[in-house]
């Protein structure tokens, strides 16, 4: 029997809550996150009618947090997929082929690590202009250096292993070796760094939107909601607390899920199917 994996379950449940909230938002609330503004109900505290209270324009914070999850998850997952694809292909190929390609990728990675990624994303956003597509590009191009580093060091330690050499002598092409022998054996660390990356991207989206360079105000992004709530933090703290809590739960959920999945995918814990 497999040992109970608390990280996996807790992370899975938290992530599932966020995903269900994002996917089923229209069924979980009857209000619209943008157009159902009513100044009559501005800055109402949480109640039976407005579970998370209302903001300065009288919009339901609960509704906006639900719809905000759609943006945060899209940004987090899509940008991390872009990061993983870039980081893995550069890191694995650099370490496997070596030579000038390795030097080039290494140099590039070091440059990327030296530039604070949020500043770099800010610069890209300033060029591309605000909006979801430019947010995905900006965050997808700026956060691959750790994935690349881990993929590179994993490849360096794996490529001397007998099974990688055997694959080469059995006629596998380089790409096939990378895909079938190297990649599956670095799933653990890559998954962990990717889930951390999703969390980081959710935070970066919030930060960029908070600075006004991400999602434009009427649309419900958690970062943009925090910007709006900044001035009312004393009068209506709920308008800031609930988007903040949503960010916290999402980031924590993905991080726990990453840790849990790493243990789960470890082949040494896999028992034979009888």
């Amino acid at each position, binding site marked *: 029997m497999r040992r109970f994996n608390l990280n996996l379950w807790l992370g899975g449940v938290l992530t599932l809550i966020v995903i269900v909230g994002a996917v089923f938002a229209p069924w979980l609330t009857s209000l619209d996150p943008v157009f159902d503004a009513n100044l009559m109900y501005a800055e109402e505290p949480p109640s039976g009618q407005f579970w998370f209270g209302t903001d300065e324009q009288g919009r339901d914070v609960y509704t906006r947090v639900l719809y905000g999850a759609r943006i945060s998850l899209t940004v987090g997952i899509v940008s991390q997929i872009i990061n993983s694809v870039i980081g893995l292909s550069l890191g694995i190929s650099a370490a496997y082929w070596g030579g000038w390609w390795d030097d080039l990728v290494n140099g590039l990675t070091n440059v990327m690590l030296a530039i604070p990624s949020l500043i770099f994303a800010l610069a890209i956003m300033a060029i591309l202009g605000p909006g979801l597509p430019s947010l995905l590009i900006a965050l997808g191009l700026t956060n691959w250096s750790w994935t690349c580093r881990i993929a590179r060091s994993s490849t360096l330690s794996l490529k001397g292993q007998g099974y990688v050499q055997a694959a080469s002598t*059995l006629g596998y092409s380089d790409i096939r070796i990378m895909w079938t022998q190297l990649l599956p054996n670095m799933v653990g660390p890559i998954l962990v760094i990717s889930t951390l990356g999703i969390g980081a991207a959710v935070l970066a989206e919030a930060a960029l939107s908070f600075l006004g360079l991400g999602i434009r105000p009427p649309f419900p992004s958690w970062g943009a909601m925090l910007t709006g709530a900044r001035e009312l933090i004393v009068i209506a703290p709920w308008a800031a607390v609930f988007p903040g809590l949503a960010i916290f739960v999402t980031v924590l959920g993905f991080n726990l899920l990453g840790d849990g999945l790493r243990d789960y995918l470890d082949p040494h814990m896999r028992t034979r199917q009888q």
Partner: protein
Amino acid sequence: MKDNATTAPPLLEIRDLHVHFPVGNKLFARNRRLLRAVSGINLSLGHGECLSIVGESGCGKSTTALAVMGLQEPTSGDILVDGQSIIGDNAPGRMDRARIAQMVFQDPYASLNPRQTVHRSLAAPLRLHGTPNSEIDDRVADILKKVGLLPEHGARFPHEFSGGQRQRIGIARALILGPRILMLDEPVSALDVSVRAQIINLLLDLQEDLSLSFVMISHDLGVVEHMSDRVAVMYFGQIVELGRWDAIFARPTHPYTRKLIATIPDPDTVLHPDRDRRAGKAPEPPAGYRFCPEDIGRPDVYSVPAESALIEIGPGHFVRCATA
């Protein structure tokens, strides 16, 4: 038995193989030196023969094996299979090469992909080489039986096996494409002593059944004694003695070979310390020559080795000497 070398080209021939590695700082050329891992190896392997290459760690025996397998680019020299060069411009592709030679690795714990079942590790190369899907399961079951495992074992992951069983799987993988040469890189040195004999016997049986030719890399002369037809003793990049195994063990001539053989634990020596069957009197080098290298224990792998040649002192028995 192996005297047909004059009529047909040998199965495998290594001609003047050199492998050098640049070491030291990449930026400052003044610190850069060449490490001469292999400097001028000539060897041939006949059909159905087992040739052993012995020597201590770092003598270049594994580098030679990797060069034959195509895993290490030689600096110069040629490697021929049936008289056809397998390196350089006319080299066969990876797929053709895969059917010529396969390798059994030293560490059975690192030589199997931990994320693939045994069946998958064995079936993937077959699929890659175009075996029809309907035959794959039978071929895999067949090879598992040949190496002394059960077809049911295919569903398991490598970590569910013991070291000896893993080495059997490693041998199965090396044989799955039906290669002609098996490169055995210290095939039993990572195994428990009690399992070694089983694996050696398995290899000998397979050699007979499948008419395989072996090149065995080892530092353990005890294993070599049981398996080889011929033995090449390597010392820091060069062959110092080469001959049939009985000649090497009965009349070790080069000082380095004698030193190696003296390290084999011998029960007679322990029981009768005054009667060491191997020590004897050190043989003299052939007239007009001196053994090369004379100074064992202080190898210099960075400079060009001194002028020397393999001198024949008996039928097929060569010793490295330099003119006195």
